[in-house]
């Protein structure tokens, strides 16, 4: 039992440390994506931010998988007991723990507690929001289409793409009535672009990946990705309606309608700077390349490659992790 506890706390410390360390270069790389030349390629930028935002989680999980693999394989009978080859440093092992060092125990327990708290809060918010969305949708009527549009009663607040898997557009009927048909078409084209790109699913994955990095960096990645994804979908909407001023006008009118309807004080996410920036981008007349998002494919490919690399080099990485824990604790 003590072996298991020591192993879990040591692994928790490894995940937290690796996630934090990996998020620093990822954060620096995020700055590189602000390069003005890349503004003409919003899809590429959004994909880049997403892949960078998931890298720390993938790296830390791959590292802990590699570090844990020898002893897990021994427990499952898939490999030999590797313990005889150790002894000169801390021993990360499910079978023969060399005893948990107090500093490592504290670090591991703290990392585990913080992770459980953040993950619990995240899933609680998701479950609550899912229930609220279901309740809201039960009041509306769905219009069939490539992506169903759920027309909702109430003040003009919503024009949202929803659903990680069951993709649909939520639209306040009063919002639809208030906009000229062409501007409404632009707004719907924007939302359809979100759904084609699978942004709702990517938002969830990026939030989940953010649990492996410091909260401030996680928030920065999410907000940056949301802003760039909006620009990518704006470009897709311009391509659909053929006029940036139509999309810009829809954006400003909807913001005005929402502002009048909203009693909420301070909606998080993008802010007025982002709104102004988006309108300027829509009006600058510069053509932006709209391509299919490859972020999910790239992320899955990276995850598989990292895991394979980690498992293939498991003995070496296992030894590196043990040495690092030995020196740090």
């Amino acid at each position, binding site marked *: 039992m003590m072996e298991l506890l020591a192993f879990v706390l040591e692994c928790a410390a490894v995940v937290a440390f690796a996630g934090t360390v990996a998020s620093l270069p990822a954060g620096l790389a995020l700055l590189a994506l602000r390069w003005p030349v890349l503004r003409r390629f919003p899809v590429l930028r959004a994909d880049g931010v997403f892949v960078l935002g998931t890298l720390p989680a993938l790296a830390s999980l791959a590292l802990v998988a590699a570090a844990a693999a020898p002893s897990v394989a021994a427990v499952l009978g898939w490999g030999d007991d590797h313990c005889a080859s150790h002894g000169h440093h801390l021993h990360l092992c499910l079978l023969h723990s060399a005893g948990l060092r107090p500093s490592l125990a504290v670090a591991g327990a703290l990392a585990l507690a913080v992770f459980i708290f953040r993950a619990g809060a995240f899933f609680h*918010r*998701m479950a609550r*929001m*899912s229930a*609220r*969305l279901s*309740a*809201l949708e*039960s*009041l*509306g009527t769905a219009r069939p289409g490539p992506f169903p549009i759920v027309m909702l*009663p*109430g*003040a003009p*607040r*919503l*024009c*949202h*793409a*929803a659903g*990680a898997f069951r993709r649909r557009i939520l639209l*306040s009927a009063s919002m639809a009535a208030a906009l000229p048909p062409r501007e409404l078409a632009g*707004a719907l084209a*924007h*939302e359809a672009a*979100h759904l084609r790109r699978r*942004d*709702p*699913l990517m*938002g*969830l994955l990026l939030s989940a990946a953010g649990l492996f990095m410091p909260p401030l960096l996680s928030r920065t990645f999410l*907000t940056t990705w*949301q802003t760039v994804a*909006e620009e990518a979908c704006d470009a897709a909407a311009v391509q659909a309606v053929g006029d940036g*001023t139509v999309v*810009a*006008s*829809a*954006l*400003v009118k*909807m*913001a*005005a*309608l*929402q*502002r009048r309807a*909203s009693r*909420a*004080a*301070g*909606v*998080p*996410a*993008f*802010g*007025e700077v*982002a*709104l*102004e920036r988006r*309108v300027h981008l829509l009006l600058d007349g510069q053509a932006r390349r709209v391509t299919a998002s490859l972020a999910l494919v790239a992320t899955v490919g990276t995850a598989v490659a990292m895991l394979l690399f980690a498992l293939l080099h498991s003995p070496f990485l296992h030894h590196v992790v043990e040495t690092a824990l030995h020196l740090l604790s």
Partner: protein
Amino acid sequence: MEGILKKRTWEPLGKLEAAVMNIVWMHSPVTAREVCDRLTGTRERAYTTIMTTMDRLHRKGLLLREKDGMAWRYTPALGRAEFEKAVADGLAAEILQAHGETALAAFVDAAADADESLLDRLAQLIARKRGRG
């Protein structure tokens, strides 16, 4: 009274509450006994359960009531459409506030932050651009 009702945030109703409200909206004014008699099939419930549910809806402010002999006679405090709009508004406001990390993507999410003067300025910018185009 109407002014107060419009400002309230309503929670979505439970299944039995919704079934009771449907009957009240269709057959108002009604007693708990009449509602009980009209609930059929899987929605059928004991009279005391219906009485408790209607009392709860009254305390929530959704039903008004007045004495009719030994029983209470209930009427809805607001119409079905008005209620659904109010519930939708409350849910939408909550969803918008939590939007940052939910499985949602919005066309505009800057509403509460964007001040009127910025929106005016942007509208003028668009109009000028259209004029030039």
